[in-house]
């Protein structure tokens, strides 16, 4: 493996880019992710997790079991947005428009 070897196939991130993030002070998978997009693609780091953890372990000298995993989030598997549409009367989502005009009413 040389430094140009691709680790994150979804986002095409190589070893060199991961090491650059580590040199900038990144300590965890998610630190590297936010700087490089490593693990942000369609597979959501399912493929690259351990390869990235190994690079972190080699760089920091910490044993593998001390290297954190990336944070998992819903959905576990890619899901059509339409399937999730709820049909509730009330919504936890706020309308930016309504919020702004209520300010006009009270403060205007």
């Amino acid at each position, binding site marked *: 493996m040389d430094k140009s070897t691709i680790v994150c196939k979804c986002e095409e991130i190589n070893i060199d880019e991961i090491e650059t993030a580590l040199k900038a*002070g*990144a*300590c*965890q998978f*998610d*630190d590297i992710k*936010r*700087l490089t997009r490593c693990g942000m*693609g*369609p597979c*959501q780091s399912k493929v690259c997790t351990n390869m990235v953890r190994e690079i972190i372990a080699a760089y920091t000298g910490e044993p593998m079991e001390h290297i954190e995993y990336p944070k998992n*989030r*819903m*959905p576990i598997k*890619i*899901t*059509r*947005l*339409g399937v*999730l*549409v*709820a*049909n*509730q009367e009330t*919504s*936890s*989502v*706020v*309308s*930016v*428009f*309504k*919020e*702004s*005009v209520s*300010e*006009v*009413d009270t*403060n*205007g």
Partner: protein
Amino acid sequence: MDKYVDIAIIGSGVVGSSIAYHLSESRQKEIIVIDKGFPLSGTSGSTQAWVWVHNKSPSWYGELSMYSAELYPFLEKKIGDVEYKRTGGIAPFFDEEDREKALKLAEKQAEVGIKVEVLNRNQVLEKEPVLSSKIAGATYSSIDGNVNPFRLVELYIKAAKKNDVKFSFYNPVIDIKKESGFFRITTKNEGTYTAEKIILAGGPWTKELGSFLGIDIPVKQVRGQILVTEPLAPLFRHTIAGMRQTDNGEVLIGYSKEEVGYDRRTTMEVIQDTAKMAVDYIPALANANLVRSFSGVRVIPEDGFPIVGEISNIKNAYLAVMHSGVTLSPLVGTLMAELLLEGETSIDLGRLSLDRFEKKSNGAVVQ
């Protein structure tokens, strides 16, 4: 270990990093930025990062946001490509009855020079054919846009480092004391820093930082949850109040507000409501694939407006805490640099002072 600096900034999010960069441009001061974690692990890294102006009310707050948005193109020349795009912003409404309120908003914003148009259904669809024909209308302004928050914070930090600002990450501040005119800042990993001036820019953790100095900083923590689709072909161009499409094609969707403390879980209920909002606005999104959800905890001052400036009873201690840190960071960085280096600012910060909250509790009129 005891180190001296002229200015210590606590918090390396979008606000703290911007202040550090703007202060460093003159290269007059020795500056350190101390953060409990790594940049982008908190609020600044969990946002859609709209640079949003036209719905910010009352109009003086919209005006501040506009000045900040106006600084972005110049900022990008200085620190590099932060993927700032002035896309124009559309805030849809679904009830014809709302048109009157929209016109009133446009009138108020015009007083400070923010050009807001109130569109009818056809005009909305002309701008963005993918939007739902159930939309009755929208407010629109060309000033709104968005930015890549990861690039923004990273490049603020890189530019500040180039100007010799020091950064200390993964180093929580555990105490701050003022002794014989200087701040003694105790950190977990690097001992104590002594600073002539201190700026608290801890976002949702600013309340804790304030308590070290014995002051109450009235801010709330408000969670927002966001959905991320797989990269799609260009679907819409504008920043729509509730969603935007990034350069690489992902659509970011969400506008929820929950006061649940610093809890960054996502919940099925909000994910479902957010999916509904997405499809109500853009029916074609029903066929898009969701790859991830995430959440972030906003910091929102009790009255909704930024708290920026010197703390009146603690000389040389400053606060910079606000919601909409992404929109406001170029302006707040600029003004804080003026305040600390020259002692006065080009825009009056009186309205943003922490003192307004005390006045309120005494029953005095604010604004």
